[in-house]
């Protein structure tokens, strides 16, 4: 299936071995964060605000402290002062004051579910009882729930110190304005034969990982702390917790547990500093686990958005101008991914004239966190719908329209510099040539839609160690929590370089004291950047193997070659030697062999995906059933194709949930009314068809194995693809998510009324 441009001959890469952590995960042995238990461990629970926006006038904890079994209670008074300033923390940009305020509300609560106090007790039930005994006096303020409400004159201000880059010293809810432009949009629109202008609104949605956030904190009397937790970035948990707790980074060790999904949502901290604070107060290990309701109310979903897109094309189907205004709900603190959305919204196309204005707006909702290609799915819903409409106006097949305007190597990116080798057109052609797209869709109320998406992917810092054991097998140690099977890829890269069977390589995700700094598992970067570190570390081990063989053979290193897993002496007469044969002689030739590498990876290759979906709409209820779905994505090089397909399928399924079901539903008081999986409905297996995948392999020239990273971009096209399919099925252009039955039915009835009206007028 793979359309390979990577011509190198691999033995292990590209095969589908059983994942090394697999048996533990099918037998229940794998230890996730909530599975950790220690002697004398206490259980913590968090008191959360029932109000979306209120001043905390007082917190009384005496009654709760008197409950038998309660050992300690912490509030923001237990946190050190934090500075209101953007700082670099690892690769994250962090405002220490905002971070601290999100861990435990200082003087104000800013969303339903905002943490106020945490209790440690001998059982989770007692801790929960204690929460009910904590008395908080609030002065309730009007909630500000939408971009429109936050930006209208006289809107209540959430953060009194917030200022932006344009309004001077005026208090505001607009945290930041970004602008990107090229060419002359007035001239561009003048040249257009067709102009489409639409406004889109998307609901806030959650990553929906099945495993709730968790942490066990152990603070020792010598000032050393250890945190066990499920996280995408142990080093980030360490630096962010150090920030909040006012502790030196070196005094905290973070042990990453197996992680039950993250999708960007586990790149920050919530419970981790609380577990340490409570442990410090009690002298015992303290475990905290969120409930599902807490996860939805108080972790970091992705922003709802309001996006206005105006685009123009000439009759022959050339995009000539785009004007875009977009505003994202950051949540209670600044930092939505609106800039990423702005840079991605038209990234797949060459458009000579554009103006993009993007705004980051604070509202009384939980502080948003990353979610798979952050900020881009919302954006692509808007642009890819308008592009579909322009293709229709021009009478051009929507895939051909994309191919005609799509970016190729050398085309300028939104920021100006040219793309290096990319595979966007190839993803379009893969869909165009797919059995799915060539098949005929028949039947009433059925429609087919396509859409495409772009995501940058990320590089950043990674470390890796490859240890060769005395029997010639190896372990590969990295600092990247494995969220979707990446340990398999790390073992495969090591095995490929060293010519070992993959079963002879054991991959390990180490804690923060056992491996060099490694940035968060995010940005589709693990197989790319950590994979690069692993490749280099294995190469380092290979160099040492050559030196040792040279010593054994009493030759110079340049007289020894490593090929096909064997060491060869140049010239004749000497039989080749395997690593297994050499390994017992490590001690006599200089000691153990440990290959090491650390990278701040450059050469990131962006990812593209194109998706086609067939839907059937029930015109009486507005329910949409997915009939068929195919996604094509450029992986650069697929190390383990099954897990590449898995990423493509998982991202697509999340995109479909975003399109059809998922939304944060707040009432007028700013209370989240669907904080459970019953009402916050993610797709079940009955909602989805098989998700067909086509892996495109347009090698990334910036990576030794051609890898791009595949974790994110597949979530970008589905929302627009579903909307475009609905249009083909029932003639309705949906401009809001979710396209749930009530919303779609309303649109269908309105459309039916309009067409009947015009028919009557004829």
């Amino acid at each position: 299936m793979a359309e390979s441009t990577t011509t190198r001959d691999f033995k292990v890469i590209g095969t589908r071995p059983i994942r090394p952590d697999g048996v533990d995960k099918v037998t229940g042995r794998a230890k996730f964060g909530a599975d950790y238990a220690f002697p004398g461990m206490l259980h913590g629970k968090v008191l959360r605000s029932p109000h979306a926006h209120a001043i905390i006038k007082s917190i009384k904890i005496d009654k709760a402290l008197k409950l038998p079994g309660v050992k300690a209670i912490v509030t923001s008074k237990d946190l050190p002062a934090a500075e209101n300033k953007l700082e670099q923390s690892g690769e994250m940009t962090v405002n220490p004051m905002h971070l601290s305020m999100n861990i435990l509300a200082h003087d104000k609560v800013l969303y339903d579910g905002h943490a106020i106090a945490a209790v440690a007790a001998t059982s989770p039930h007692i801790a929960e009882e204690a929460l009910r005994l904590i008395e908080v006096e609030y002065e309730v303020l009007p909630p500000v729930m939408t971009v429109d409400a936050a930006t209208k004159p006289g809107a209540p201000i959430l953060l009194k110190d917030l200022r932006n880059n344009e309004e001077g010293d005026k208090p505001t809810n607009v945290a930041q304005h970004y602008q990107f432009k090229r060419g002359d949009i007035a001239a561009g629109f003048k040249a257009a034969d067709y102009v489409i202008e639409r406004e889109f609104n998307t609901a806030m949605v959650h990553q929906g990982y099945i495993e709730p956030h968790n942490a066990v904190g152990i603070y020792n009397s010598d000032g050393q702390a250890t945190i066990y937790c499920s996280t995408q970035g142990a080093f980030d948990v360490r630096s962010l917790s150090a920030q909040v707790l006012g502790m030196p980074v070196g005094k905290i060790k973070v042990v990453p547990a197996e992680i039950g999904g993250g999708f960007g949502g586990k790149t920050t901290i919530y419970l981790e500093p609380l577990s340490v604070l409570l442990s410090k107060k009690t002298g015992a290990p303290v475990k905290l686990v969120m409930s599902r309701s807490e996860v939805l109310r108080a972790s970091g979903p992705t922003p709802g958005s309001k996006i206005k897109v105006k685009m123009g094309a000439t009759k022959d189907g050339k995009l000539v101008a785009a004007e875009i205004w977009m505003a994202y709900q950051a949540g209670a603190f600044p930092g939505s991914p609106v800039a990423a959305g702005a840079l991605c919204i038209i990234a797949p196309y060459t458009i000579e004239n554009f103006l993009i204005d993007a705004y980051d707006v604070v509202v009384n909702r939980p502080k948003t966190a990353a979610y798979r290609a952050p900020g881009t799915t919302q954006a692509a819903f808007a642009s890819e719908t308008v592009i579909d409409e322009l293709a229709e106006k021009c009478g051009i097949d929507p895939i051909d329209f994309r191919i005609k305007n799509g970016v190729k190597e050398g085309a300028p990116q939104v920021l100006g510099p040219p793309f290096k080798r990319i595979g966007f057109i190839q993803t379009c052609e893969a869909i165009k040539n797919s059995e799915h797209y060539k098949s005929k869709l028949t039947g009433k109320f059925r429609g087919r839609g396509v859409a495409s998406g772009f995501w940058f992917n990320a590089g950043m810092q990674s470390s890796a160690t490859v240890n060769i054991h005395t029997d010639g097998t190896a372990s590969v140690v990295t600092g990247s929590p494995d969220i979707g099977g990446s340990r398999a890829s790390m073992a495969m890269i090591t095995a490929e370089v060293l010519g070992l069977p993959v079963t002879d390589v054991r991959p390990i995700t180490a804690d923060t004291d056992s491996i060099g700094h490694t940035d968060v598992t995010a940005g589709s970067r693990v197989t790319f950047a950590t994979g690069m570190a692993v490749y280099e570390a294995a190469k380092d081990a290979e160099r040492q193997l050559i030196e040792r063989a040279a010593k054994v053979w009493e030759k110079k290193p340049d007289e020894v070659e490593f090929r096909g897993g064997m060491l060869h002496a140049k010239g004749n007469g000497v039989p080749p030697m395997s690593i297994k044969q050499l390994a017992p002689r490590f001690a006599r030739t200089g000691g153990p062999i440990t290959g090491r590498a650390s990278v701040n990876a450059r050469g990131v290759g962006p990812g593209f995906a194109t998706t086609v979906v067939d839907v059937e709409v029930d015109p009486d209820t507005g329910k949409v059933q997915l009939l068929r779905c195919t996604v094509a994505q450029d992986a650069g090089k697929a190390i383990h194709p099954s897990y590449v397909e898995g990423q493509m399928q998982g991202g697509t399924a999340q995109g479909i949930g975003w399109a059809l079901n998922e939304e944060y539903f707040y009432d007028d008081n700013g209370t989240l009314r669907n904080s459970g999986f019953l009402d916050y409905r993610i797709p079940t297996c009955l909602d989805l068809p098989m998700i067909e995948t086509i892996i495109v392999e347009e090698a990334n020239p910036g990576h030794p194995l051609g890898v791009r990273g595949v974790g994110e971009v597949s979530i970008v096209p589905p929302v627009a693809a579903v909307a475009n399919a609905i249009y083909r099925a029932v003639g309705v252009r949906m401009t809001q998510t979710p396209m749930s039955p009530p919303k779609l039915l309303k649109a269908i009835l309105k459309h039916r009324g309009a067409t009947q009206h015009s028919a009557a007028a004829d």
Partner: protein
Amino acid sequence: MPTVVIPALLRKFTGGVERVEVPGKSIRELVQRLGERFPGIDRQLLQDGDIRPSIAVSIDGEIATGGVLDTVGENSEVHFIPALGGGEV
């Protein structure tokens, strides 16, 4: 001479000019020269002597990682863009 592409919202410092040729061999030199030519723009780009955490530097189409220490070539194109890596927390 390296070219610096001024972000749209900082073009108020350059009288609307988008592309500026600036002599220099490192990001530090480019920002310093920019500040000399367009007073105030350097303060928008720097914090505590290095590039602001909210800004990323792209040199010849690739995100650079060295802040003010990164070197630039004779014909390099440098962009200052919003930092995206890892997101803000």
